[in-house]
């Protein structure tokens, strides 16, 4: 299958310090590729090169002619002085209110349409960002640390949503992560980055690769989760007044951050 984006031998330096060296990367439709690596490994730099926000110093980058990127940045900080509600936030991507509502419905936060952005929880914020990325009708989703600031239960739900979106849209997904357990279960291919590509392959292959073990230690057991129950997002986070309420009787007992 033709790649959506293909990087060959990409290198990048900042102030003569090499951040990336000879990186190959390739995302095809319908596959989730996850970049993992320690802090300072160049993950964000690589994502910025993929997005065209940074120019590589060397190597080649091929983008497919019909590439449409939906980008979900690592963290959104909205200054409290900026009055911004979720519906207004989505208008940056699309001026069609029906489409915006549909995107919110798809990510499970339609009830937050009129919510102030700076009052959203971590998980709600990530879902809103995902909705904005979806509104661009992307064939490539670039998700920089999509579960940051979300608790474990919420992370699992988000990864599940990302997997569903991949199936529905048949888009390629490039994801950045530094957590290991959950993301390994949610991805087709792992690229382990530490300035260069240490190893890559399926999660099963990578988790036993000596270079991976050297970076992350041998303790990393692959997280395979078996669902024994489902959460209903709306009843979970909504009380009668329409305000968000934390964990009203989650069967797991833990707080649910979605």
């Amino acid at each position, binding site marked *: 299958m033709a790649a959506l984006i293909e990087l060959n031998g990409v290198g990048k330096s900042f102030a003569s310090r090499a951040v990336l060296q000879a990186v190959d990367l390739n995302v095809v439709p319908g596959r989730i590729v996850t970049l993992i690596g320690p802090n300072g490994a160049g993950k964000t730099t690589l994502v*910025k090169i993929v*997005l*065209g*926000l940074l120019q590589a110093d060397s190597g080649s980058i091929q983008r497919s002619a019909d590439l449409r*990127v939906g*980008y979900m*940045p690592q963290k*959104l900080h*909205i*200054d409290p*002085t*900026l*009055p*911004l*509600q979720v519906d*207004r*936030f989505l208008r*940056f*991507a699309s001026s069609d209110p029906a489409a915006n509502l549909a995107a919110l419905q798809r990510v499970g936060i339609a009830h937050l349409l009129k919510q102030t952005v700076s009052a959203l929880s971590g998980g709600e914020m990530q879902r809103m960002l995902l909705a*904005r990325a979806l509104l*661009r009708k992307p064939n490539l989703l670039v998700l920089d640390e999509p579960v940051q600031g979300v608790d474990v239960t919420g992370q699992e739900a988000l990864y599940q949503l990302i997997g569903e979106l991949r199936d529905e849209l048949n888009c390629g997904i490039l994801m950045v992560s530094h957590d290991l357990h959950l993301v390994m279960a949610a991805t087709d291919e792992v690229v382990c980055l530490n300035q260069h590509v240490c190893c890559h392959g399926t999660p099963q292959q990578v988790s036993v690769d000596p270079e991976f073990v050297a970076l992350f230690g041998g303790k990393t057991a692959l997280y395979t989760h078996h669902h024994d129950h489902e959460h209903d997002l709306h009843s979970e986070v909504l009380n009668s007044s329409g305000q968000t309420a934390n964990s009203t009787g989650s069967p797991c007992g833990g707080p649910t951050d979605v």
Partner: protein
Amino acid sequence: MYDFLYLALLGGLGVALVAGPMGSLVVWQRMAYFGDTLAHGALLGIALGMWLTWSSTLAVIAVCLAIAGLLIVFERQRLLATDTVLGILSHGSLALGLVALTLIPGARTDMEALLFGDILTVTVAEVAVVWLMAASVLLVLWRLWPALLAITVHEDLARVEGVAVDRVKPMLKLLLALVVAISMKVVGVLLITALLIIPAATARHFAKTPEQMAVLASVIAVFSVCSGLASSWWLNTPVGPSIVVCASLFFVLVFAVYNRRV
């Protein structure tokens, strides 16, 4: 009979209208110090105008634009933090302006008018320039509004979605330079930033969308100019500071009422 008063009001209103959306952007992007720097540069502009015998409005606009340009260039280096660069330019140009004004032979300067505004002596031509500039700035802000807002929210995301960030960002600074240049006559060098940020900060309490905040800030600025002029007329106080005092009173009032409710 009170022609000068109407003229002052007209000039003040032109500035107040543009202060709403521009002030909101200054608040959101934390550019208050940037505004101060431009305002201090305006003093240097006055000195330059006298020296070259240009019209002072023209000279102020030229110097403000030049300082904005300098800052745009300086922002691209990483050796010094932006607020350090701003501090150097801000106080450097203020000091240079003050020194230059005393050195220029024959320059009879009313320092108080420069520092705190002198709207009551505004001429028809100056009011025309104020309205021309204010209208142009409002027009450009209107056109760039979605892009400016997208950049305020998240610059990289805006860039990925096709916003011409590298064109729009410097544009905002140039527009701010123009607003500062036309505000100088109304409230003076030291109080320009106040006229930008206080109405916007007051409007924040009521606004649910960025657009509401921008429009409401203009309304509050208009009220501040009107009430400032009126109180200056009745109490015989300087106009510029009176306008800022009124704006501040509105802010304190709204803040007190709003925070009691929360």
